[in-house]
């Protein structure tokens, strides 16, 4: 109970920070924190596999891809400022939505409903896997098609008009694979730098030893 409350507070606080901060990178990291807390909430809700996937895909994948997008699009640390009316309007809408649905929820009195009996077997990862490939196999296949299309679409959109610059972010199921451009482009924060020619980067043993010295 206490843990759950803590997790909720962290998740909501981080989410609010993510939704309101003008620093887009901070927002992404706050989102990651919020997602981590939500993963913990999943764990509390007896779904460890989903929690793991949440972390793996959301934090390891989507958040990272977002940071990547920020860096590639060089939008800088601060987003354009939103007007007060805009924020007030959106806030009103969000709060109105919250209040409306919360009223329904509280009015519904869901806590009185009986909790059905379930076996430990039903909660196991095996059961999820079995259902995934058995009862929901059509959906599963559809999802795989969606992911494939997403990869293709992402690659197509990201590489259009510009054959040379192949920056793309694609998702391959478990993780997000992003292909870096051949020549790294410096971000906004990094002043324009002439990237070292890749050919000159051929390492040598002496380089390596020097680097070792530098580390030590």
């Amino acid at each position: 109970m206490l843990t759950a409350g803590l997790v909720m507070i962290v998740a909501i606080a981080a989410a609010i920070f993510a939704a309101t901060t003008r620093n887009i990178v901070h927002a992404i990291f706050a989102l990651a924190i919020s997602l981590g807390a939500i993963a913990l909430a999943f764990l509390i809700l007896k779904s460890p596999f989903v929690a793991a996937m949440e972390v793996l895909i959301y934090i390891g994948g989507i958040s990272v891809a977002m940071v990547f997008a920020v860096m590639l699009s060089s939008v800088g640390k601060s987003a354009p400022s939103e007007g007060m009316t805009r924020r007030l309007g959106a806030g009103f809408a969000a709060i109105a939505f919250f209040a409306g649905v919360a009223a329904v929820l509280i009015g519904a009195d869901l806590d009185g409903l009986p909790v059905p009996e379930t076996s430990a077997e039903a909660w196991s990862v095996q059961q999820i896997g079995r259902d995934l490939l058995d009862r929901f196999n059509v959906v599963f296949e559809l999802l795989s098609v969606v992911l494939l299309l997403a990869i293709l679409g992402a690659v197509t959109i990201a590489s259009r008009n510009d054959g040379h610059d192949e920056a793309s972010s694609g998702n391959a199921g478990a993780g997000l694979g992003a292909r870096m451009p051949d020549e790294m482009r410096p971000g906004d924060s990094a002043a324009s730098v002439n990237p070292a020619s890749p050919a000159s980067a051929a390492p040598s043993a002496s380089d390596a030893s020097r680097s070792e010295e530098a580390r030590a």
Partner: protein
Amino acid sequence: MMLTGWLLFSLALFSIGLYAVLARRNLIAILIGIELMLNGASVNFLAFNAYLSKDPAVGQIAVLFVIGLAAAEAAIALSIILAVYRSRNAIDVAGLDELKG
């Protein structure tokens, strides 16, 4: 109490995401809002799954699908954002109203 608590939690996440979607001008911030909304929905699934489901695998699978779709959505959205950035050198939605009536 707990189920309602979880649902309110998910509702709060959803509303916060909604605020971000409505208020923010940065496309990536909007994407963040969308992810928050999706997670709110996922929490909702799992809350009902944990408290009311006879077949708890189903709720988890639903959330897995949500996560998978979110991954696809993020991939597409981010590449669109990059394309938008490339074509107009900004990812501010304020200028993205060519389809207005």
